[in-house]
């Protein structure tokens, strides 16, 4: 296969200004229980070539299934034909330079999740599911496990040739309690059933879903009769998971350079940030330090090289509240005069082309101690935990989030449970109101599997490191 890809790039070099090819072989497994029954056991596999060429500034990308030379060559011909059929792109410059990617990368793991017997997975999920049931108001319980494996060989007309094997797994539990006119949800360890990491079975086993199951169910039931989150402006403490999503939506997406340059205006949107803001814009308070780091152990955005052969590396996006970087590609980086791409081009499988994506976009820990310490340091406010809904405008400026649960904070103590909690804000105002971030001991990576972008659509896996954080004077109770 290595020789096939190298030969293909030799053939492409004389016909395109730039070309690259990925042969991707992937596998996925999904196992889930629902109300005490095994509901899903699903395996999937696919393989194919994705060939990308750049001719006169226009890109052509074609994907064909399989592993044969004929498939690879057919994809190359189609990519060239599509690139040539498009209107010219006057003034298109060269790509940012990068040393050719060579070598291999593999996820560090202890136990291959695909090798764990299905019976063992089912036993764990059924035990967690069982531990959530009992109260008749709990009408839906789900326990979920997912695993993904991707073998990817990449070559380019720049001379790159590298192999990567990436393995991810994780899962979680969720309980839904219902009444005649309400449905309340609680999850562990995070929202949407999934806390996935680039790791082996040991990661999922360590989530301890059986031990947390009774509390999840009890809180779902308690939410049915809890008072509504009051409306008003107050101090807001977010758990690590919601803080991570806040970073994702209002920092990560806003700093994707394709959006900043208007390339995603018709779908994902643009950004409230502009290129001249680099180094000059105050994004948030001095406690705000955000980096893109494709080298984090366990991160879903970690890799040896991105999907155009740029070595994974870390760089600052926001330092002490000031804008310091963008998530970029070789083309976009060159366009704004950066010496090097941020290494953020990622594709969802062989049949999608790489686009600018987050890697692991992390909010650095602060010095506020534990979550309990932070709450103890808060006279009055609301603590919100576990995302339930999210929405943000196409410039990544105005947002509104809701969480599964919230607690009132009074006199430094977490008091009564609140339901239907939500908050809203404007990105720079919100981040400027950041006045505490918990310490390293509370910091962890939170994985997201459903970051949607691109046309045709791509669902990317990304992670965000975050610890609980506190924001002053925030509008809450908006929904």
């Amino acid at each position, binding site marked *: 296969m290595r020789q096939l890809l190298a030969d293909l790039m030799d053939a492409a070099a004389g016909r395109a200004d730039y070309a690259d090819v990925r042969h991707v072989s992937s596998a996925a497994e999904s196992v889930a229980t629902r109300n005490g*029954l*095994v*509901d899903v*056991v*699903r*395996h*999937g*596999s*696919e*393989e*194919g070539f994705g060939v990308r060429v750049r001719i006169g*500034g*226009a*890109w*052509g*990308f*074609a*994907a*064909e*299934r399989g592993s044969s030379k004929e498939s690879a060559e057919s994809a190359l011909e*189609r990519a060239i034909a*599509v690139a040539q*059929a*498009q*209107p010219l*792109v006057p003034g298109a410059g060269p790509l940012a330079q990068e040393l050719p990617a060579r070598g291999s990368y593999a996820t560090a793991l202890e136990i291959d999740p695909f090798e764990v017997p*299905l019976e063992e997975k*089912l036993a764990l999920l*059924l035990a967690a599911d069982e531990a959530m049931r009992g109260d008749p108001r709990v009408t*839906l319980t789900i326990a979920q496990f997912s695993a993904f494996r991707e073998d990817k060989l990449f070559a380019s007309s720049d001379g790159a040739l590298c192999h990567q094997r990436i393995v991810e797994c994780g899962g979680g539990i969720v309980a*839904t309690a*219902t009444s005649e*006119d*309400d*449905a309340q949800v609680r999850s562990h360890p995070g929202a949407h059933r999934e806390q996935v990491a680039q790791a082996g079975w040991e990661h999922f086993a360590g989530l301890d879903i059986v031990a947390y199951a009774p509390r999840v169910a009890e809180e779902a039931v308690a939410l049915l009769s809890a008072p509504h989150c009051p409306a008003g402006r107050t101090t807001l403490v977010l758990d690590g998971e919601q803080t991570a999503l806040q970073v994702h939506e209002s920092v990560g997406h806003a700093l994707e350079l394709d959006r900043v340059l*208007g*390339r995603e*205006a*018709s*779908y994902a949107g643009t950004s409230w940030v502009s290129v001249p803001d680099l180094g000059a814009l105050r994004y948030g308070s001095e406690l705000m330090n955000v980096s893109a780091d494709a080298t984090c152990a366990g991160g879903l955005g970690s890799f040896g090289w991105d999907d155009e052969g740029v070595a994974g590396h870390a760089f600052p996006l926001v330092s002490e509240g000031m804008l310091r970087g963008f998530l970029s590609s070789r083309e976009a980086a060159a366009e704004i005069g950066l010496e090097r791409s941020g290494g953020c081009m990622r594709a969802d499988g062989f049949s999608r*082309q790489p*686009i600018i994506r987050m890697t692991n976009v992390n909010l650095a820990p602060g010095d506020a101690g534990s979550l309990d310490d932070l709450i103890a340091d808060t006279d009055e406010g609301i603590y919100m935990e576990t995302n339930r*809904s*999210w*929405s943000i*405008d*196409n410039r990544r400026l*105005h947002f*509104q989030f*809701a969480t599964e649960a919230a607690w009132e904070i009074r006199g430094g103590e977490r008091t009564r449970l609140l339901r*239907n909690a*939500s908050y*809203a804000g404007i990105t720079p105002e919100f981040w400027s109101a950041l006045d505490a971030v918990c310490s390293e001991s509370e910091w962890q990576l939170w994985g997201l599997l459903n970051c*949607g972008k691109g*046309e*045709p*659509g791509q*669902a990317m896996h990304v992670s965000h490191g975050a610890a609980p954080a506190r924001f002053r004077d925030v509008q809450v109770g*908006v*929904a």
Partner: protein
Amino acid sequence: MTNLELAQRALAAAGDGALATVTAERSLMLRYARSRPTQSTAIDDLTVEVAVLRGGRVGTASTNAADDDSLAHCARAAEAAAEAMAHSPGGNPYPGFPAAQPLPDCDTFDAATARLDAEQGGAALAEAFEVAEREGVEAHGTWTVGDVETAVASSEGVAASERSTDAFMKVVCIAPSDRSGYTTATARSVADINPRELAESAAAKATMTGDPVALDPGEYPVVLESHAVAELLVHLSWTTFNGLAFVEDRSAFSGRLGSTVAAPAINLSDSPRFPRTFQRGFDAEGVPKAPLPLIQDGVAKNVVHDTASGARAGTGTTGHATAPGGSPYGPMATNLVLTGGGASDARELCAPIERGIYITRLWYVNAVRPKETLLTGVTRDGTFLIEDGKVSRPLVDMRFTDSALGLLERTQALSSTPVLTSEGEFYGRRFASGVVCPALRAASMRFTG
């Protein structure tokens, strides 16, 4: 070999108690931004999915390889999954794959569209760029065509295939003022897509004169263009008309069938052979699709079911499976049709409004509390103030937080000509769908920022 023959080979590899599906996709998408091409994607791929039933449980496996070894491996994986499920505790929730039934004829294919002509796409982009330059705006968007064949074979005798084409073009024009306008068109045939008309329509919205004004949060009368209406209906399809959510007491229709849930003018159905939809003859279990009223004269009438949720509800399937054995996300209405009213167009709907909001499309809509159909999202690419019955000037985009069913309850009038609308989103294997709906006027909509 045809895709149905491939499905039958996969079925043979699985043996008794099985259902095999082949979905073969050929597609082409061209993207552009700032009046230049930016990305293009040509796909030639297929998915073979094998579902095996053992002891009332369905295990599944899929591959994109078509050789005998791969099909046998896929079938064994599905069987092993089903066997493990059958040995787990609990009852037997799945009643069995449906028996073969006569399938309706549908108008789904256009040979010219299936050529996936990149030159035609390039010409469409050039037309949009030409209009944009003339109007002093920049054009952004996509042009795409697809040719997808779905074949289903089961041990219950199902042997069905359907080849469908679709075409979609989106034009977003952005003026130097940063105001934007949006239009799309989607159809079975690419010949029905007119790039010039789309670009002119989007440019007209982007260049509407007047400085944008900002409104305070609150409740305002609204006119929603069909794109905005469709967005709300799609969310109802996921949360409310979904038979699994219904039997699990998570749907707003749970316990409310037969109740008034919308204005009397609201007649909404899933109509898989309505002329302007992407017609579908059968669902993922090979069950024929038939028209199903969801809201009739404002009254909740039905939800959609697959075999699994239909068994739990005691009603049987309505032909809305999205996966054999039932998807964990439930069945789905994929051919929503909202009947039109008497207004000639969206502008006429504005006539009775003294001061209100005209909305082209809604964006990043998400359910806040699904059982209440409470949604939040923002307006985008063409939001205007209505004053004295007319669209008067641009508005700064706003966030709404409101109940989708509530909006249908507050609906006062509908335009007369429902149109097929789509966002052209194609995650996973391409599945063209759209909502046929008119524009509507609602007495109020709640804006929260």
